[in-house]
């Protein structure tokens, strides 16, 4: 019982629970009695041990909890579970900075090298480039001039009424009737120019969009009807491989071209036209296609954009159809008579051209 009282006193003393009087009494007791003093020291040490032990137990407990918690959350892995994120993603996360640096270094180097390349190559080639540029300017000018025509030939869509389009045409009647392609005649009227550069006013008589044919009539007072037309217009189909030639106005001057008939049908099996092998350029539209005898077998109308030298000509038969239609619709044209006799047969090419060129006209269409 005494021991318990003493122990209580010691504990209260160590915990600072004694009041001053009691404390002073206890301290004198401690000083005078070595047993009590030893007990105080011993118990103090023991209480420290207890505290440490308790703290130790607590921290162990916390550690255990944290471990379980982190394991559940997937922050730790003890073999059993599969990591939540894929390997690729892990690798990416690990190396993305390196990748970014490598990429930017690569980018900078690429920019630098291309910069160098541009710098040096431009200085070396400078004079040449300028010459080319000059040429290009010239080419550009003529292209601008021909641009509208190109569009017409390829697309047949009217771009702008104000734009002039151009092509070729040829006489089909001594009184001044000229046949050309319908797509050449954009706008409200047209003028025709002969091979000598003489311009004549003309009016549009008939347009057949489906057949892509149009008939003009020279209305100019300066025009004097010709006596006869040297070529005939063939009614029948031409033969495959037949040698052909054409005269047209891809430039401001009449241009001769030669080739052969390569297919009896046109683009995508169009039975109203031939496929011909000839170098055709924008402006050739509406030009007559002659065979060796000087018969008109077709009217050059289109070419294939991607293929070289592949052109298409509307069959001459269609001219008859168009003219007959015109005659039916309007009696004023009853006197229109297509040439049926050729005077060119057996002549040399130069002589043929000589005789024919006056009857091939440069057609310029204009809008308001």
């Amino acid at each position: 019982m005494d021991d318990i009282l003493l122990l209580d006193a010691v504990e209260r003393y160590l915990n600072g629970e004694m009041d001053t009087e009691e404390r002073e009494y206890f301290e004198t007791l401690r000083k005078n009695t070595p047993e009590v003093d030893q007990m105080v020291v011993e118990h103090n040490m023991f209480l420290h041990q207890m505290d440490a032990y308790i703290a130790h137990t607590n921290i162990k407990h916390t550690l255990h909890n944290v471990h379980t918690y982190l394991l559940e959350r997937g922050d730790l892995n003890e073999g059993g579970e599969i990591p939540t994120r894929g390997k690729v993603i892990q690798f990416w996360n690990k190396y993305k900075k390196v990748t970014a640096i490598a990429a930017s270094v690569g980018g900078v180097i690429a920019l630098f090298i291309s910069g160098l390349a541009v710098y040096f190559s431009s200085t070396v080639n400078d004079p040449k480039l300028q010459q080319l540029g000059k040429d290009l300017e010239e080419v550009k000018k003529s292209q601008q001039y021909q641009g509208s025509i190109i569009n017409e030939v390829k697309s047949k869509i009217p771009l702008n009424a104000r734009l002039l389009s151009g092509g070729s045409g040829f006489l089909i009647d001594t009184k001044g009737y000229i046949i050309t392609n319908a797509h050449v005649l954009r706008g409200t009227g047209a003028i025709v120019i002969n091979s000598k550069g003489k311009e004549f006013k003309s009016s549009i008589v008939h347009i057949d969009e489906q057949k892509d044919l149009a008939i003009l009539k020279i209305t100019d007072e300066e025009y004097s009807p010709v006596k006869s037309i040297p070529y005939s217009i063939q009614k029948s189909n031409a033969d495959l491989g037949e040698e052909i030639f054409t005269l047209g106005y891809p430039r401001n001057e009449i241009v001769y071209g030669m080739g052969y008939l390569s297919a009896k049908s046109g683009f995508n099996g169009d039975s109203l036209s031939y496929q011909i092998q000839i170098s055709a350029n924008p402006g050739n539209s509406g030009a007559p296609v002659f065979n060796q005898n000087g018969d008109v077998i077709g009217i050059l109308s289109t070419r294939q954009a991607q293929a070289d030298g592949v052109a298409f000509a509307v069959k001459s038969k269609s001219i008859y159809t168009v003219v007959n239609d015109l005659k039916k619709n309007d009696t004023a044209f009853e006197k229109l008579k297509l040439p049926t006799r050729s005077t060119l047969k057996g002549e040399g090419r130069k002589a043929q051209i000589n005789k024919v060129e006056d009857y091939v006209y440069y057609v310029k269409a204009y809008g308001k």
Partner: protein
Amino acid sequence: MIWCLYPNDQKGNPVPRIFFKKFLGVLWVTFNTSRVLKSQIVKGDTNEQALLKGLANNDSKAIETIYKENFNMVQSFILNNNGSYDEARDIFQEAMIALYEKAQTESFVLTCQIKTYIYSICRRLWLKRLQQLGRYTTQVDSMEETVAVAEDMEAHEKRNVEFAIMDRALNSLGEPCKSLLEGYYLKKMDMNALAQEFGYTNADNAKNQKYKCLMRLKKLFFSQYNIGE
């Protein structure tokens, strides 16, 4: 004090380590180290001190952070050296306790990274464990620098012995003494609550009982403790 093998500058950053790695001269390594350096400047001064303070106060958030940052390193070290997942956990937690004891001493100043310290402790603990188990075959491969922890380890082991004695004493005390003492000292319950829980008529009775138990515990403890000394 914990002393790193590499001396530190005034700020406590293990700068020579950076230089050592830079020595390798590889772009990647330089880049990597510069990243490490950056994080060390931040952590070494404020973050790690705060973490240790949290650890000393048994703050579970701080413990969680330290745990997350270091456990995997220790785990892979143990696993790579003939250990199991359970052993890795034991070793790591013991190292955490050692760090906790360290952090509680008032004179404690952190002079190297927590990571380095934990790694050093774990490495030592594991070597010892391997020796005890007779599994110590080859040199344990060390991938990181270590700090000298021999003194700390001694203190830690001494404490462990003491705790073991206390544990044994408490366990051989028997009920209801054990629960009564735990209630008073561990759970900090007051005498009235204890009297109610353990069925004593009043607080004084409970107090008497507690002192009886305490005296028995002291006896048990000191009989072992003196032998231990």
